[in-house]
């Protein structure tokens, strides 16, 4: 995937030179290993900052919200789906964008590697399906498949759903994965166990709202968690308030979440709150045959009423 870098720089240079865009959104090398950071390039001469490898997990759609310029943006499958959602929800106009599609083979999970690595990581390089980690103790190698972000490993939309040009030929989509296996496992638990499971899952939450801030779906001028009149959710560390917060946050993503993993990646205490959003994604898929961000012409299932909406939950 790192081979994309050169083509990307070329594309960005061309777009900027031809004045088709005012800026290009992509990634540049971060100050620490495995921490590529988004960067906004405005001049053709700056395009060489741009890089691409398996550490570009951050969802770039987040950087489009309410921008007025003409923008070139590199988009993985999940990015593209969030761009679609942005277009639907008037966060950006389609005409403003030149979407450069990036077929994606998954991003690596920094936490997994850190956990496995012996000592401080000095550098991480990749070589095809092999990830090489250099620490003071020496070099370790991991198979990329073993250290993928969990959402990437079950991703079924690796190719962009919307694009103006492509950086490479589309990659093969994964067809033999079950994105909702983990949710199904929870559903299979007895009631008490489920309650305890979430108690356990959410107990480390410090309510820093990083999950919310990282989420590309989250752009309200005032967030419900900050409102006091009415107070939608208690602001305390009470377990119920925490649970309510996560419940409502998931709810706001219902029918819109692309499972890009931004929330989980951002969480400083490592909570997998994707389990909640995925439960709703699963329901949307099962009840309305809906997956978020696949077409800019269709509003999410929960935004509209259809006469044939399922109603078997009603007695």
């Amino acid at each position, binding site marked *: 995937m790192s081979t994309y870098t050169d083509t990307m720089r070329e594309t960005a240079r061309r777009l900027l030179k031809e004045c088709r865009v005012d800026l290009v959104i992509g990634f540049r090398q971060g100050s620490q290993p495995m921490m590529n950071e988004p960067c906004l390039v405005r001049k053709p001469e700056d395009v060489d900052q741009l890089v691409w490898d398996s550490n570009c997990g951050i969802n770039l759609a987040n950087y489009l919200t309410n921008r007025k310029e003409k923008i070139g943006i590199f988009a993985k499958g999940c990015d593209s789906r969030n761009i679609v959602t942005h277009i639907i929800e008037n966060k950006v106009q389609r005409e403003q964008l030149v979407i450069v599609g990036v077929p994606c083979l998954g991003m690596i999970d920094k936490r997994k590697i850190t956990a496995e690595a012996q000592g401080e990581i000095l550098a991480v390089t990749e070589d095809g399906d092999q990830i090489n980690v250099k620490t003071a103790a020496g070099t370790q190698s991991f198979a990329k498949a073993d250290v993928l972000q969990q959402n990437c490993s079950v991703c079924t939309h690796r190719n962009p759903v919307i694009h103006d040009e492509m950086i490479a030929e589309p990659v093969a989509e994964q067809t033999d994965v079950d994105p909702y296996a983990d949710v199904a496992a929870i559903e299979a638990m007895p009631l008490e166990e489920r309650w305890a499971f979430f108690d356990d899952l959410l107990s480390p939450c410090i309510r820093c709202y990083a999950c919310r801030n990282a989420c590309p779906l989250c752009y309200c001028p005032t967030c419900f968690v900050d409102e006091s009149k009415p107070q*939608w959710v*208690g602001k305390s560390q009470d377990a*119920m308030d925490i649970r*309510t917060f996560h*419940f*409502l946050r998931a709810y706001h993503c219902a029918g819109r979440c692309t499972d890009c993993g931004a929330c989980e990646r951002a969480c400083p205490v490592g909570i997998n709150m994707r389990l909640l959003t995925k439960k709703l994604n699963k329901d949307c898929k099962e009840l309305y045959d809906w997956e978020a961000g696949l077409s800019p012409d269709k509003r999410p299932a929960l935004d509209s009423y259809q006469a044939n909406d399922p109603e078997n939950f*009603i007695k």
Partner: protein
Amino acid sequence: MSEWEPKIVSFLCNWCSYGAADLAGVSRMQYAPNIRVVRIPCTGRMSPKFALAALREGADAVWVSG
């Protein structure tokens, strides 16, 4: 307090179930005295937040009826 009586916070649509409840009254039908009715203009008004709030504030159950 004698025996525990559950409290069921009920969100009833003004046009449907609220009317049914009125009619049940007019017909003097008898039913369990455990529901507490919040009249809403339409079930569309119902937000998950209301149900959560009700549970959080100690309701034993929530019932939404259109």
